[in-house]
């Protein structure tokens, strides 16, 4: 079995190599800093530099207020910028890549515990080369979210309830879908309470179980309190979604909307409207994978993957390909499906193919392809 140190070295080298390739591809697109910072990246960078402001100042913030974006990742960019003196875009990329290395290695530990037959090296290669995996290197919240999710699940597996709750609190300050882990913490606490129902010291058990429940939602609660103080609306992050084209109509409405649009042709026009059917197809694929996970009794994984899809799908279709393709559980499921490929030659072919497609996807990102936002 490969040692963790070897895997850490291989992962770091691969991530560094792919950033170098991204920089090389970015040369005709104005250089890495300009090319990599597409779509929401600008919002995170601006938040890191300027923070949130009230709506009386919103006209200085861009076309709409920045309240929809959660604070943890911009705070990390701000910290990294202060520490390294790098430009915020580069600091954001540095943070994202370090967190990505952390996620891949946490994934190795998780895979060894939950899928003992899966080769950890295959996981490392897959995570680095998966076509949408480039998003983990972009100044976005994906790598932070994935690392915290796996960290919380690992803590739960070791029955470290308070640690899991602390990581969930950070997750809730990263993205709205962080709240999906709260029911998982609740279930783990309930299981502990049931298991120790005959223990002599019930007071101690109750304290051990209730404190994590108080800690887990803290990230969201503090963000709500902050938004109330600055903006005057504790749910501003939710209400402002309307200005991002998100309207609560339920997942079924948007699925039907996506299928009935049947607008695959929009994918060929990078300047046109994004294809609703393409976004819908990713949502259905993700839900299918969640169903497979549930059937294999991986209930927490199925819940987290399905929730990551259904929650945003209830308000719109956009960004769903990214939400699905960067979910750790979708990645684990895809990697497990590739596990039967054991011959070195076929693995090399697979790695080459995935890497090539990822390169093309990166070019799509650099030209702001509407299939990738």
């Amino acid at each position, binding site marked *: 079995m490969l040692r963790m140190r070897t895997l850490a070295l291989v992962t770091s080298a691969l991530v560094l190599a792919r950033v170098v390739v991204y920089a090389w591809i970015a040369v005709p697109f104005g250089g890495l800093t300009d090319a990599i910072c597409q779509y929401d990246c600008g919002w995170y960078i601006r938040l890191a530099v300027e923070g949130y402001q*009230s*709506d*009386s100042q*919103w*006209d*200085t913030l*861009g*076309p*709409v*207020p920045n309240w929809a974006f959660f604070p943890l990742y911009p705070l990390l960019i701000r910290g990294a910028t202060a520490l390294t003196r790098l430009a915020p875009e580069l600091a954001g990329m540095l943070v994202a890549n370090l967190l990505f290395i952390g996620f891949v290695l946490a994934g190795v530990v998780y895979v060894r515990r939950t899928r003992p037959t899966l080769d950890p090296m295959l996981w490392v290669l897959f995570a680095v080369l998966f076509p949408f995996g480039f998003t983990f290197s972009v100044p976005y919240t994906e790598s932070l979210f994935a690392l915290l999710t796996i960290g919380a699940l690992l803590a739960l597996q070791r029955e470290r309830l308070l640690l899991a709750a602390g990581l969930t609190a950070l997750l809730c300050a990263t993205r709205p879908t962080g709240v999906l882990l709260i029911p998982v913490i609740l279930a783990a606490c309930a299981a502990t309470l049931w298991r120790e129902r005959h223990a002599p*010291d019930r*007071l*101690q058990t*109750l*304290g*051990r179980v*209730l*404190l994590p*429940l*108080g*800690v887990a*939602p*803290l990230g969201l*609660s503090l963000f*709500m*309190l902050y938004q*109330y*103080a*600055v*903006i*005057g*609306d*504790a*749910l*501003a992050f*939710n*209400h*402002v*979604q*309307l*200005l991002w084209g998100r*309207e*609560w*109509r339920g997942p079924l409405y948007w699925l039907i909307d996506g299928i009935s649009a049947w607008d695959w042709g929009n994918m060929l026009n990078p300047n046109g409207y994004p294809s609703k059917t393409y976004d819908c197809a990713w949502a259905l694929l993700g839900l299918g994978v969640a169903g497979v996970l549930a059937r294999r009794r991986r209930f927490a994984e199925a819940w987290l993957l399905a929730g990551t899809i259904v929650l945003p799908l*209830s308000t719109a279709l956009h960004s769903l390909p990214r939400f699905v393709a960067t979910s750790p559980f979708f990645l684990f499921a895809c990697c497990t499906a590739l596990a039967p490929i054991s011959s070195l030659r076929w693995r090399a072919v697979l790695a080459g193919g995935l890497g090539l497609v990822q390169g093309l996807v990166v070019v799509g990102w650099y030209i702001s392809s509407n299939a990738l936002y």
Partner: protein
Amino acid sequence: MHSVLRAYWRLAAATVLIVAQAAILALGLLDPHVSKGYRSLFIDHTMMKVPYEDHTFIWPGPDTVPETAVPTKSS
């Protein structure tokens, strides 16, 4: 004795955290100025439109903002 104290400390901390967060949630859900009650969160999407229409946030950007934008609580 030490473990009993620790159990009480944990219970007290948990109670304070849960009550405080319930209050924050209530602040968001029940504030009539911004959210028109709990229904604004998910159930009736049309209710969500009300506060921000009042605030005259008009797509696509700053050039379209009228000078008479309604101020918020914080201003």
